[in-house]
């Protein structure tokens, strides 16, 4: 089933206002504001330590924020009870970790990993769950006969693809990704990127993707946010930002003068 949602929605899916997170005296991210529209892919780039992961984990509710507001589908995320937020996290949201070990259950078979979110929302028919798991393994190019193998036996690229399948199986409305291609060999990265691009296009996913790799956002992101020292220094359409950067830091970033 491919759900391409390209209708003109009249409210953003996610509205972020003045989001700030400090680690003691150190700034994690400061005064971040943006809107994400349904079906949009937002890339967050910046050098290491610029606050990308901090921002993403605050958005996903993985850690508390110090100031600001997050609205998902009009609902105030920070005012939600933990129960509501965790329910959101296993239904409407998905989170792909840089290290697949953080996002997979290493002691559970590939099929069980993909099926977990289905069972978490009440699926109780084994045959259906297995059928959906098989379908999703196929979509992320994992052979059907690996369904009962544990991810330990998988290569890094396969583990990452499995993590993606596990996250997308319940049709989340918003996907967070933190350096999904990081830590992989270059050739493996390219294949994963192609796969991600296909999924994003076919499913019309709304994605916030954090990366330090400009090639990733050039391929995937509709819009770009550039971060430096915890703050957003520039945002705009991906092509605009990359081809005609306005901020001096972005110019450095794009010209590859900065080794990020």
């Amino acid at each position: 089933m491919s759900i391409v949602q390209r209708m003109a929605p009249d409210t953003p899916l996610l509205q972020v206002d003045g989001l700030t997170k400090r680690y003691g005296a150190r700034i994690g991210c400061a005064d971040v504001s943006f809107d994400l529209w349904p079906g949009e892919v937002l890339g967050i780039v910046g050098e290491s330590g610029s606050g990308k992961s901090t921002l993403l984990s605050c958005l996903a509710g993985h850690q508390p924020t110090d100031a600001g507001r997050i609205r998902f589908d009009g609902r105030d995320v920070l005012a939600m009870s933990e129960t509501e937020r965790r329910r959101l996290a296993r239904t409407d949201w998905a989170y792909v970790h840089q290290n697949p070990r953080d996002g997979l259950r290493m002691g559970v078979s590939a099929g069980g990993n993909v099926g977990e979110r289905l069972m978490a929302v009440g699926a109780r028919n084994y045959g259906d769950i297995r059928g959906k798991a098989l379908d999703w393994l196929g979509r992320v190019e994992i052979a059907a006969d690996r369904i009962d193998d544990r991810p330990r036996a998988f290569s890094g690229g396969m583990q990452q693809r499995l993590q993606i399948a596990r996250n997308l199986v319940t049709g989340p409305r918003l996907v967070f990704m933190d350096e999904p291609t990081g830590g992989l060999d270059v050739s493996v990265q390219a294949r994963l990127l192609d796969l991600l691009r296909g999924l994003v296009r076919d499913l019309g996913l709304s994605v916030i993707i954090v990366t330090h790799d400009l090639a990733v956002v050039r391929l995937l992101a509709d819009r770009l946010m550039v971060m430096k020292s915890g703050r957003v220094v520039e945002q705009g359409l991906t092509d605009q930002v990359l081809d005609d950067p306005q901020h001096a830091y972005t110019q450095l970033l794009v010209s590859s003068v900065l080794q990020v």
Partner: protein
Amino acid sequence: MTDQAYNFAYLDEQTKRMIRRALLKALAVPGYQVPFASREMPMPYGWGTGGVQVTAACLTPEDVLKVIDQGADDTTNAVSIRKFFQRTAGVAVTEATGEATIIQTRHRIPEQPLKAGQILVYQVPIPEPLRFLEPRETETRKMHELEEYGLMHVKLYEDIARHGQIATSYAYPVKVEGRYVMDPSPIPKFDNPKLSVNPAIQLFGAGREQRIYALPPFCNVVSLDFDDHPFRATKAAHDCDLCGAKDSYLDEVITDDAGGRMYVCSDTDFCAGRQAAGHAGRLAAGGKA
């Protein structure tokens, strides 16, 4: 004869009160694991110190105690716990399920239906049903609090994926009163249906893990399953070779070096009672062939 060096039933009154408070809370919130300050007992942890402490907190001088291990009254574990309470509490003991007011058990529920007024105390090694897939205690507590039990079905899914069916045959997870998922201790799943709507009080004590939980009389207990792989309370497809019972849980006993075997009731009191009433199985002495 009570050994005067000990308080009644070994534990001091303050400890017993602490355990009773935990028990009352556990009964008020069926299936919920209540932490308690487990005491050192004069026996190793594997010997059911959790159950022993619960029994000690419940015993009164008028009680009649039965202790079983895997259904049998005469195993080392059962005998030593029974002796322990004879010595420290001076209570009457019995092997007859129907005569006991408190039954401490490891790994079985008696075949004879329990009645109102009886207390069944389970020895529990691992109280947390989610432990297998989520080792972090902070996380499992959160999952219970928020009723996030999808993981329990992942465990059953893994079972079917690996064995073609739900192979879990002991400690089969249940949901209590539609709320808490609970580990019924390593009883065979054959016994699971007896957990539900039981007139007796069922108390569970985990000594090493310092947890107490409970099922009040007549509460609803449902074994988890899938629509297309429903729960089945299975047993060996045989009748008891001694008493002929068709519907009791059986132990397989190897009888000789040549692979000879027999099936006998794991509940020794139940089996003896049936034999005394004239029932006979395939291999009963002087029984029908």
